[in-house]
């Protein structure tokens, strides 16, 4: 039976994940339920090791859950999920390609077959957008950590996947540049009506961008609280953090997160 209308874009139904090492089993994620709607921007926040990245890997089909079902468009994810664009924490740029050639790669694939001229125009446009003009012909080894992140971001955005999975994409950027990137990301994802799952440890970043913030507990990961962010859009990423509504939300969520962060560092 077609379930398209009723099913969420992404569904996690009692999804848990255990990793078996040589002599013991580590529970990375306790069984959780989470539904993400089409065009929704969801931020996952929590201490390191709480299983946030594991959730992205499960949605991308890179991992299979130990229990429960991960579904995408109402269908269980059992292989690589090619509907998503995944920007991993480690940038996976190809060292032998220049920045521009790295960004172009998704457009070269047969499944898209973008004509050369159009691909070049789109590469030029997105390089401008992420502020890398002048570095098109640099190799990844010649770029700073922050620049490599922006190349990785551009490479994921350029083919406009319907769903974007991002794992701490702006961790390596300085504060000013980060705000600029947040602004661009909001603009792009809204314009193209993307569904976004955004992992971060920066609560401010999460509230600025997200429709919903999910706070995770320390390992083994569980959902501690989910809050809607009712701030009107489009949001001014440069000023919103000074608004009263933002401060209230930040305060409330920080109370939840604080315990987990301290608990996480104890272990």
């Amino acid at each position, binding site marked *: 039976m077609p379930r398209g209308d009723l099913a969420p874009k992404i569904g996690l139904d009692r999804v848990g994940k255990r990793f078996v090492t040589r002599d013991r089993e580590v529970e990375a994620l306790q069984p959780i339920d989470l539904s993400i709607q089409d065009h929704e921007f969801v931020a996952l926040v929590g201490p390191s090791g709480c299983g946030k990245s594991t959730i992205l890997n499960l949605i*991308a089909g*890179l991992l299979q859950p130990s229990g429960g079902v991960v579904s995408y468009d109402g269908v269980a994810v059992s292989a*690589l*999920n*090619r509907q*998503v*664009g*995944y920007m*991993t924490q*480690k940038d*996976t740029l*190809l*060292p*032998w390609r220049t920045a521009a050639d790295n960004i172009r*790669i*998704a457009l*070269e*694939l*047969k*499944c*898209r077959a973008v004509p050369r001229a159009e691909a070049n125009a789109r590469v030029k446009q997105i390089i401008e957008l992420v502020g890398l003009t002048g570095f098109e012909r640099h*190799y990844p*080894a010649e770029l700073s950590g922050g620049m490599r992140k922006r190349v990785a971001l551009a490479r994921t955005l350029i*083919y406009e996947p319907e769903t974007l999975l991002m794992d701490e994409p702006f961790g390596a950027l300085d504060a000013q540049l980060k705000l600029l990137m947040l602004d661009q990301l909001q603009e792009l994802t809204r314009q193209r009506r993307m569904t976004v799952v955004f992992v971060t440890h920066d609560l401010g970043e999460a509230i600025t961008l997200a429709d919903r913030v999910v706070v995770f507990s320390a390992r083994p990961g569980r959902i501690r609280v989910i809050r809607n962010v009712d701030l009107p859009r489009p949001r001014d990423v440069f000023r919103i953090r000074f608004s009263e509504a933002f401060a209230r939300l930040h305060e409330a969520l920080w109370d939840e997160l604080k315990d987990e962060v301290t608990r996480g560092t104890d272990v």
Partner: protein
Amino acid sequence: MSHSSIIAGTAPTNRARLADFLSTTIGRTLARLVLTLLILAAWQFQPDQNLRFWMSGPLQIVARLWSWVLDGSLWGNVGATVLAMALGYSIGTASGVALGLLFGLMPRVYRVVSPYITALYAMPKIALAPLFVIVLGIGIESRVALVALTVFFLVLNSTLDGVRNVDRDLTRSLALMGATRFEVIAKVLVPATLPWIFTGMRISVRYAFTNTLLAELIAANSGIGFMIEYYSGVFDATGAYAAILVLVIMSVGLTELLTLIEGRMSHGHRH
């Protein structure tokens, strides 16, 4: 002041002057020339006729070389050595890369055959030369086969190492973008493996040269190695030394060529 004047109990000025002279390019070249002439003169003018039979003399050797140039036998044999080496090297490299990629992509198949490969890789291939002669004859085919086999295992192993060392995150990220298996191979696996393949190819050149020569020494009807073996066999020292001289020139030429190519590649390669 030159460092040689530090040595106690020597005449500093003369020694220092000689040392300074030897450290200039002209001085070094001149000294080298004098040394060469001395050795050649001693060789040429040594009086013992018995020794002359075993050692020949520089003038006789050059004269013999010149007669080979005139009658064309030099080019025929140099050509045979170069051809056997080049053919064997090309065949070995092509098949080594192809099978290396294939086994790299099919690790389960590789695990089945790996004991054979390890055993054959470890074995000195030159031991198979007599067998190849029996099967393929004394012509160039048996030498090509031996060189190809030697190069094949070297290139196969470095290609396999390369494929195994490809970062899985790179291949997975391209697959997530919607790449087909073939696109992942063409855009990630092969380029990432190239430096490893080049390493294997570089190492193989010397093995190819050595084994070509060894095969010619063992049993052949042409080639520089064959000439050395032939003239030694008929106690013609002049001929043997003339052939060895050709071999020295070829070795130096090959080394220079390799240095040139490697210099070019390290300039062209960006990481």
